[in-house]
């Protein structure tokens, strides 16, 4: 089962890996350029700016690669099995539905973790090759950024898995998953855009909507970078958001008739 799930996932992983490598090579600007840009800005340390740039690149790159990969891994998990009738082969064996779903989830989560780690390693390696003072980056900072981003992406994986259980057709699952993720990730932006004008604090409120109500906001442990503390809020929000759709998918899968 694990071997089969890994074989299913590895191609998606490889498809996602190619653009990542290309993007990282193109987007990491040489360290000398960063230093030149920072020169003349009083109070700015080029090392801090450069390391922050690297973290930002990892965060945004991670979002644009890991989110679709997580959605892709999750959305075909069950509806794919139903679509080719292989679900009957799996369900006719003495393996509980909980075990089947958790195995699929664990493999996908593992693939995403590997992708998150490799992405971080790749970004750091390319940055080091371009002269960034990577040695000054705290290792806990690097680990935490990977962990929180990965936990955050698990929300997408769980949501896609839930949709995959809900719908029998792969097409319906993909459409529903895309719609759900659009609503979740874009709704705060849409709400902010339609926020009534005329308030003095409009900009602040919009910013608040853009940030605190945006799931992806929590995937970036800003607390750690700004004050150096453990990003507990980010961690808890991401953990909760990861667990809830998984539990819902398990509940539904155990009751679903095939």
């Amino acid at each position, binding site marked *: 089962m694990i071997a089969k799930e890994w074989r299913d996932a590895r191609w998606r992983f490889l498809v996602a890996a190619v653009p990542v490598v290309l993007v990282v090579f193109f987007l990491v600007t040489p360290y000398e350029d960063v230093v030149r840009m920072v020169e003349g800005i009083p109070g700015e340390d080029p090392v801090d700016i450069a390391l922050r740039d690297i973290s930002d690149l990892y965060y945004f790159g991670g979002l644009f690669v890991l989110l679709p990969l997580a959605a892709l891994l999750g959305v075909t998990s069950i509806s794919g099995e139903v679509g080719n009738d292989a679900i009957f*082969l799996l369900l006719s064996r003495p393996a509980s539905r909980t075990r089947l779903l958790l195995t699929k989830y664990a493999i996908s989560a593992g693939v995403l973790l590997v992708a998150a780690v490799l992405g971080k390693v790749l970004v750091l390696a390319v940055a080091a090759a371009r002269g960034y003072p990577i040695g000054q980056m705290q290792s806990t900072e690097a680990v935490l950024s990977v962990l929180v981003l990965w936990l955050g992406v698990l929300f997408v994986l769980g949501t896609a898995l839930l949709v995959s259980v809900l719908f029998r057709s792969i097409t319906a699952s993909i459409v529903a998953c895309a719609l759900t993720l659009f609503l979740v990730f874009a709704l705060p932006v849409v709400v902010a855009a339609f926020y009534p004008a005329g308030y003095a604090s409009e900009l602040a409120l919009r910013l608040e909507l853009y940030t605190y109500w945006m799931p992806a906001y929590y995937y970036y442990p800003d607390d750690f970078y700004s004050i150096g503390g453990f990003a507990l809020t980010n961690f808890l929000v991401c953990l909760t958001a990861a667990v809830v759709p998984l539990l819902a998918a398990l509940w539904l899968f155990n*009751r679903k008739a095939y």
Partner: protein
Amino acid sequence: MADTRAEEAVSVPESAAIQVRDLVVNYGHKRAVDGLSMTVPRGSVYGFLGPNGAGKTSTIKTLMGFRKPNGGSAKVLGYDIVNESLEVRARVGFASEVNSLYEGMTVPRICRLCRDLSRSWDQDLVDRYIGVFSLPADGKIRKLSKGQKAQLQLCLALGSNPELLILDEPTSGLDPVAQRAFLKVLVGDVAAEGRTVFFSTHLLSDIEAVADTVGIIKGGKLLVSGDLDGMRESHRVFRVVYAETPPDDEVRSLQTLPDVQEVEREGRGIKLRVRGDVETVERGLRERPYRVLDVDSTGMGLEDIFVAYVEDGHDR
């Protein structure tokens, strides 16, 4: 190698392989199985016969735990299908009417997948049946014919060394040669090993070829169930030849006899379809108020029995 757990699996002290009581299965507002009750004896080859949409697949899916019943209960090898579904599936081999194999896998790879998901696995047995069916041992599944895929599904169902095989329309869509090969193995090898085989079909030829017990289902209800020979004996066509053409009163009188299902004129005679106590009916036919020259009876073929029940639809 065979796992000893497989031997433990067959030692459940129950006389029936499958016992179903008042089973109800709904699809939304549509009732697919409507108070079905039946018993499948251990060691039998039970043909579950019914027209398309009769509720055969819904019954099997419920027995396998793919869906929960909306009413009633059922036990498979003594285990409750709802609360002990894992125990049921550990002891039952199942092959679906549809191709549920992973097309991209090879035969050894899908064997490994099924082994991983089973409590016990007898690869020697699987290999033996792969040999019996002359399946390519290392072939890609997508390159197999439809008949070979059905045969492979049977091999995989047998891999866990089950006491009971549940097959949903196993020969559906197979050409006559593949169908014959499949059934030959089913009855010649699988049933001969003492396993119970419960298979659904709408093909009378399948039942005639392998089943020793049959149940006919229509509209989600079991119309009749019993051993095939006994069923043939209790379903007979009588031809009564009179010395003179009998009046309409006689025809009406015959229609009122118990167990007479259908009466029709045939020249100077009358043809009757009877199901039930045929001996009593025969005695009654020989004691008519009109002079009877001959009373002849022949066993009904399964097709006649099936058609009689399905067209009639009377519960039995």
